[in-house]
Structures are given as structure tokens and as C-alpha cells.
């Protein structure tokens, strides 16, 4: 896990479910073959209704048409982010699109686990509801050690909740590395 994560924000509302993050029709691509894998980047967040895509104005696709990576690297959302299906393709698609972190008010538990155990994106929880202050395109600077995010346009810094016990898994890279480091499974 990096000490600092900086990038442009992509802002969404509440209860963004995994069908919106990666619609079911796109779950068929290989997650390893490079030519197919990048399709997850192309279609990441394509299921979000246009009016809610990239708040406050909406109408901003996360990944531009015909692109495979997003110009936004930090997703900012409201409560219950990643609710619905258990598809690991959801945090994976965000990672393939180039996202490094999500900052949400709260998460659905399977998305949260998948993000952590697979090491796809760092799922931060904000103390305040950042959806109401951050705008799509804002430059954000996350200080992972300090547990803060600074919004450049506002010149303001906001608190993130401590990552707690999952920080060790995120530090290790994924649940397999964590289990090797702690002696749960043997090193290959």
C-alpha cells in the first residue's frame, strides 16, 4: 500500500451496486488475458445512470468511450458502496480502469472484503460525507499514514476512518501474502 495516493476524483451517490460498477453482461471476459482483461476498465461503472455519473453535474463517463482506462483514480461515493452481488469483478474493474482508492461513507461487506483480500483498491471510509463537498475532477491527495484526504480546490483536509485490522492485509498486498507472512500458509 502506498503512503500517498493522489489523483482526480470521480463522484457518485449512495448505494452504488455492483451491477452498476460492472453490469452482468460484461462478467464473461477473462480476468487474466490482457486483451480481454482491459475490457473491465472500459466498462467500469458503465451501469451508473447517466444523471448520476460524475456528480454534481452527471453525464460524465468514468471511462471515456473507446478508452480502456479512466482519467479518474479516486472514486468518492456515499453510503453502502458496492452493495448487491459478490462479483469480485467490481473492485477488479475499478483497478483495471486505473483507480487506486475509493472513499465512501460506508461499504457493503462483500465488496469491502473483495477490495481488501484481493488488494484491488484501498477502501477508505470518510468521517464526513464527502460526496457533498467534492466534485468530479477535483484533485485529491490521500495521506494514508495520517488518515486524511486534502481537496486541492477547497484547500481543506478531511479525516478518513482508520483502516483497522484490514490494514495488515492491504500492507501485505492481498490475503495470500498476509497468510504467508503470518504463517497461515507456506511460502510457494
Amino acid at each position, binding site marked *: 500500500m502506498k503512503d500517498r495516493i493522489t489523483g482526480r476524483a470521480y463522484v457518485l451517490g449512495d448505494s452504488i451496486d455492483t451491477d452498476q460498477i460492472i453490469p452482468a453482461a460484461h462478467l464473461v471476459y477473462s480476468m487474466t488475458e490482457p486483451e480481454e482483461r482491459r475490457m473491465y476498465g472500459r466498462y467500469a461503472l458503465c451501469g451508473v445512470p447517466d444523471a448520476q455519473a460524475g456528480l454534481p453535474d452527471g453525464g460524465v463517463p468514468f471511462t471515456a468511450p473507446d478508452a480502456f482506462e479512466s482519467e479518474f483514480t479516486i472514486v468518492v461515493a456515499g453510503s*453502502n458502496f458496492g452493495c448487491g452481488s459478490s462479483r469480485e469483478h467490481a473492485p477488479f474493474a475499478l483497478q483495471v480502469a486505473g483507480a487506486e482508492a475509493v472513499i465512501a461513507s460506508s461499504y457493503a461487506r462483500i465488496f469491502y472484503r473483495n477490495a481488501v483480500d484481493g488488494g484491488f483498491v484501498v477502501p477508505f471510509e470518510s468521517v464526513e460525507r464527502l460526496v457533498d463537498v467534492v466534485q468530479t475532477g477535483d484533485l485529491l491527495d490521500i495521506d494514508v499514514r495520517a488518515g486524511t484526504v486534502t481537496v486541492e480546490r477547497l484547500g481543506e483536509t478531511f479525516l478518513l476512518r482508520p483502516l483497522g485490522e484490514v490494514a495488515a492485509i492491504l500492507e501485505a498486498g492481498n490475503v495470500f501474502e498476509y497468510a504467508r507472512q503470518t504463517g497461515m500458509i507456506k511460502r510457494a
Partner: protein
Amino acid sequence: MPGQTLTEKILAAHAGRERVAPGDNIWVDVDTLMTHDVCGPPTFGIFEREFGADAKVWDPDRLVIMPDHYIYTEDPHALRNIEILRAFAAKHNLEHYYDVGTSRYKGVCHVALAEEGFNRPGTVLFGTDSHTCTSGAFGLFSTGVGNTDAAFIMGTGKIWVRVPETMRFVFEGSLPPWLMAKDLILAVIGDIGFEGGTYRALEFDGQAVFDLSMEERMTLTNMAIEAGGKNGIIAADAKTEAFVRARTDRPYTMVRGDADASFVYEKVYDVSKMEPVVAKPHRPDNKAKVTEVAGTKLDRAYIGSCTGGKFEDFLAAAQVLNGGEVRVDTFVVPASTEVSKRLREESLPGQPGKTLWQVFLDAGCKMGHASCGACLGGPIDTFGRTHGTEVVISTTNRNFPGRMGSKEAAVYLASPLTVAASALSGVITDPREVLV
């Protein structure tokens, strides 16, 4: 020391501990792991990446592979996924693989896990599908995980779990004939909200729950995830044992929560006073009484899925549709091949001579093959998938934007009785209007 809930006791037993408390992070031994065609292939990829191409599954007898999502499609990538399952099952000599195109094919995993005797009281079951919580109807701990966690279990037989707090929903009274378990769970989700159960166990209790059949109990636990729940659970009773014993000789343990267990939330419902409800677009917690939305014009009705595609769901719908004719396109998709077979063999009570299948055909329904179907949209050629601005009433579990295919479609979730009554009139209709 306070007592422990049913969920806590099962988790403690699988962590080799006397007791656990909500919030504890523990490693548990897994009894059963289930995967399917969407998440199986990437899970196998992670398993081989992390444990080696020649690695052995921790216990081939505990791994169940049930293709069900994208079966009746020409999508080449979806068909390739089935090939990957088949090759992996052959390589590891997996007995519990239910191959497409053979007599072993089952259909929707959550329903087939019950039918094949994998839901055993007191056990711990994980699956690469959020509706794995369905299995909790049999007094076991079951929850959905992603590919990484599933691959970890495949290699080690263990996984870390944060012990959830338990919420208890007690249903008392006698269920009127126009209500089904679907109405009860939609009421719960509407009351506690889309994330009211996040990271928590949802335990269903009370005489009205134990009066339900196993299939109806499965409808309750199935939708625990729609309130964010980690697992849904109902203590096993004699009905559970009879169902399980008819399907497997494997051992199980009857576990009950302690009488002095503490719950983070408790609510008592009197089912005799409840009413048919729907979840309006586009959230499962967007509850309304059917009477409040009655008359809403529909384009389509859909009866199917792990939630509303079990035998008794069709029995209920057939009761309403018998002798009538649907006014909107009505899709019927049995969850499993066993359900499909029974629909072709069995009739409405007291009305022999006409199969349930024929009742649906005569009413003008479109009949599909056992699978997840259009519950989750799926490939473009999926039976019953939405492609435009359809207004749909469905027995499925989710009505997120785009869930059944088109982002512009609007989906109402309801019980099979309400869906059937609405199919006959073409507008949302209270089943009390058509039930004699």
C-alpha cells in the same frame, strides 16, 4: 457471561473455540464451498496462481460446482466459462460437478444445494455468490465471498471471518393465504433499509417462520443480502431434518442459540396483520403496499430465480393463473431442473389431469429452461432480459438500475401471488382481488 446466538455458536465451533463475540476476527474451517460459471473460472485462476498449477483442492468432496448463470446463450465467452469448469472438474476429479448438457445439470445453485443435500444444519458454507445466504434456512452459517476468498478456501479449507452481530426478526401469528415469505422479507428490508443489516446476521424466528415450508424459509434467508446482511439464518427443526435426511446421509449437528443470547436489534411482526408488498424501482428497500401502487401499468411479468423460482412459487402462481390469460408478456423460468420436472408432472391440488406446466402454457406464459435467466440481465440473448423501457413485476430479488438488462427498465419486486395476479390484469394487482 451472556449466551451466544445461533450464528455465534456455529462460528465458534468452526474456529475451535468455546465462544466468540461480535467483532472478533477468526479463522474458520469450511465444510462446503460452492462456485458457478461466472466466478468459478477466475477463482480457479487465482487458486493456480497462488498455490501452483499442480496444487490440489483441499478436499475435493467439499467443493461443489454448479453452472447456472449463463447457460442458454450463444455468447462465446460465457460458453468458454463452462468449458473451463468442465476441464477443472476433470483435472481434479470432482464428484460434485453438475455439467451443462447432461442429466446431472441442476440449475440455480442456491436451490440445487438444498435439493442435493449440501445444506446441512450446523455447518459452514461459503459460495462465490451473494445469495449464498439462502442456505442459512437450514440452520447453518452461509455467506457469499469473492473469487480471492474462494481460491483461498480451495487451497486451505479456511477463511477469516469477522463475527457478525445478530438481528432477530420474530414472526408470530398465522399467515393469511394471500401472503408469502416474499412479503415478509420485503417488509423487513423496507423497515431496516438497504444497509440496515450490513455486516450483521439476520435471524428469523417465531412460530410463523417454523410454520413455513423449507422453500418458503429459503425466500427469507435468500434476501438477507438485500439489507446488507452477512448471513440469514433460521434454526433447524424437525421439518429441516426431514428435508435433509431425505437427501443425504452425511452428518450434521443441530445447533440452537442460547436462551440468554443478546441481539443488537429485535423486532416482532404479527403476520396476520401484514399486507402484500412490493419493492418499487430501483431499490429492494423501496417498500410500498400493493394497494398503494395498484393500477401501475406493466409491460412484463417474470417468475423465476433463487428467490421466486422454486416449486411452491410456481404452485402459488399457477393457483392464480389457472383458467385465465395473461395480459402482458409473462416469463416463467424454473430455478432448477427438479422444479422444471415437477411442473411437468404435478398438478394443482384437487385438479388432476392438467400439469402446472400446462396451466402456465394455457395462460399464455413463455416457458424457459432452468437457470438464473434474466434475474441478473446476463448476455444479450438471455430469455426474458429487458432491452428498453419495460416496466416489469418480478419474483426476483434485485431491482437495481440495469439489473434485468436495460438501465431504462423499471422493476417491481413482489411475491409470486402478486406477480401472477398482476400478469392477469396487466397492472399491479393485489392478490386478494383474485384469490377466491
